[in-house]
């Protein structure tokens, strides 16, 4: 088995830098537009009521955008590690050829951690209502007994401790897995494989708890009064399906550029099945959460979905229903046949749709609780997303180039080469 190495040319790297540069330019243009008064854009008339009580500045919008993209991309990076861990623990053979792709996704985690920390330290008041001190002072007219009751969990110090702990655990275990995986390339044998199974098992337990609590911390606590017992699952399913789409898309791009020669339609078929199945899984979680609140129709619960459609001057209707369409109906109908899952062009279209769709899913989770009626997809949103995508791709490709593209001494390599479905 010859070692296959990815070479990222200066030209490709420049493309990523260009992406970041374009993003920055758009972002600055968006900021200037907003600072000079064009901010609310076409939502101005509807958002009047909301605007009076909470006028968002360009800085607010920047923080929220950074947070949104960081949660989304960190999730994808984390799913890379989760994917590897799951396949270790289940003794999977089929994925060996593409194993380095999800492994390399994890390279974004440290960047995500730093950005998460910085944005929280400087922009927490914009993103999280519960960080305001006055909510907890009984004498203050703005005292909020419900939020005050959540203080033991939702306080800045504990929040920061948790955030650091999540990233420390995730990055630590991811690095350990990766290190063993690379060592296996050099030294061979099955020792590293068995070691990694144990590390993966630990990671899965950690992930099982932290993916849920991270979802509460970073996304759910934005709507501080509201709660959902499904929320951890909901964020996980959104991350998971976008992570799978990212892995599939990366494999296809690598293959179309002449790498991963031994990956064939059978591997793509399995990845396609993953994307297909977990799009349905996401919908299942989405619907389970939605239907109970819709049916019970209790004001403090239903408000979450009212804010996400078009009541109270908010205008999220298109995104709310578009979310279902692009993340469920589209992948469901397009990837239903066997042929579609085995064709690169179909998978490419669907995975790109899923990635965009789940970005909007996070948009819908974060924006209505922060920017309220003033949220819209403008230059700033596109710019920030492009910057993050560029940085993510830089880290990801850096991870890919650091080791052989196919793990040469993995015990299941042979099985993966002959994978047949």
């Amino acid at each position: 088995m010859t070692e296959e190495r990815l070479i990222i040319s200066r030209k490709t790297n420049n493309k990523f830098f260009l992406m970041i540069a374009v993003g920055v330019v758009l972002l600055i243009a968006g900021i200037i537009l907003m600072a000079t008064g064009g901010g609310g854009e076409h939502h101005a008339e509807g958002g009047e009521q909301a605007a009076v009580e909470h006028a968002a500045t360009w800085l607010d919008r920047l923080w929220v955008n950074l947070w949104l993209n960081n949660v989304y991309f960190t999730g994808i990076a984390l799913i890379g590690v989760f994917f590897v861990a799951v396949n270790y623990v289940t003794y999977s053979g089929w994925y060996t050829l593409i194993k380095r792709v999800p492994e390399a996704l994890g390279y974004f985690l440290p960047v995500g951690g730093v950005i998460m920390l910085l944005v929280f330290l400087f922009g927490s008041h914009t993103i999280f209502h519960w960080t305001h001190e006055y909510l907890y002072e009984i004498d203050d007219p703005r005292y909020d007994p419900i939020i005050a009751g959540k203080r033991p969990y939702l306080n800045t110090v504990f929040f920061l401790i948790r955030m650091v702990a999540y990233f420390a655990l995730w990055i630590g275990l991811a690095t350990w897995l990766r290190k063993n995986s690379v060592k296996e390339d050099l030294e061979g044998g099955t020792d590293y494989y068995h070691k990694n199974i144990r590390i993966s098992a630990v990671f899965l337990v950690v992930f099982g708890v932290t993916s849920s609590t991270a979802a509460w911390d970073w996304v759910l606590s934005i709507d501080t009064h509201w709660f959902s017992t499904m929320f951890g699952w909901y964020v996980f399913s959104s991350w998971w399906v976008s992570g799978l789409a990212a892995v599939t898309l990366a494999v296809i791009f690598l293959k179309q550029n002449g790498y991963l020669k031994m990956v064939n339609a059978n591997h793509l078929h399995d990845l396609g099945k993953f994307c297909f199945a977990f799009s349905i899984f996401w919908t299942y979680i989405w619907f389970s959460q939605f239907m109970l609140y819709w049916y019970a129709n209790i004001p403090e619960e239903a408000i979450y979905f009212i804010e996400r459609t078009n009541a109270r001057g908010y205008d999220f209707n298109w995104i709310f229903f578009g979310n279902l369409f692009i993340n469920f109906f589209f992948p469901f109908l397009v990837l239903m046949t066997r042929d579609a899952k085995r064709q690169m062009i179909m998978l490419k279209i669907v995975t790109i749709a899923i990635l965009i769709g789940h970005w909007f899913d996070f948009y819908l989770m974060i924006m209505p609780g922060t920017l309220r009626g003033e949220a819209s997809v403008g230059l700033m949103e596109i710019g920030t997303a492009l910057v993050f995508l560029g940085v993510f791709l830089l880290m990801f490709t850096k991870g890919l180039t650091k080791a052989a593209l196919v793990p040469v001494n993995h015990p299941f390599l042979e099985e993966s080469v002959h994978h047949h479905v």
Partner: protein
Amino acid sequence: MNKKFVLGIYDDEDVLLTAIENVRAAGTKIYEVFSPYPIHGIDDVLGIKRSRLPIVAFFCGLFGTCFALWMQIWMLGFDWPMIIGGKPHIALPSFIPVTFELTVLCAAFGMVITFFIVTNLKPSMKVNVFDKRSTDDKFVMAIEVKEGVTDMTALNNLLRSNGAVEVNEKEVVK
């Protein structure tokens, strides 16, 4: 009416797969191959067309979806309108679980029933077991002998040269 078959017995999966390729390349039509367990890739080698069962599943599922929606909309919206939980008569989200279940049920039953019909699988079905060892440790390739052919040496040689450990003949009452 009796039909005559030539049976090539193989004891190795890989030998069998190459044998199938060679026999088919020589222009001989293979009636059926019997194996104790499913063999990866044998469908392609035998040139068996892909099953059309998924198409049946899709339309059965579609029927289930339509039936479930129609049933609920007609029952709760027109035949006997009721207000439940202050929702409109036709409250689509509350219909989804039933719609989902009926879709799955119809798709599954539709597939199974179609499979039974197409394969003629019924309690009275009579199965010809060409060689009982094909349920144990041997692979059996059955080739139907054309009407009027009496000289088996060519077939015999073809099978043996492709790794058959035994070649038998068998007459089957059809």
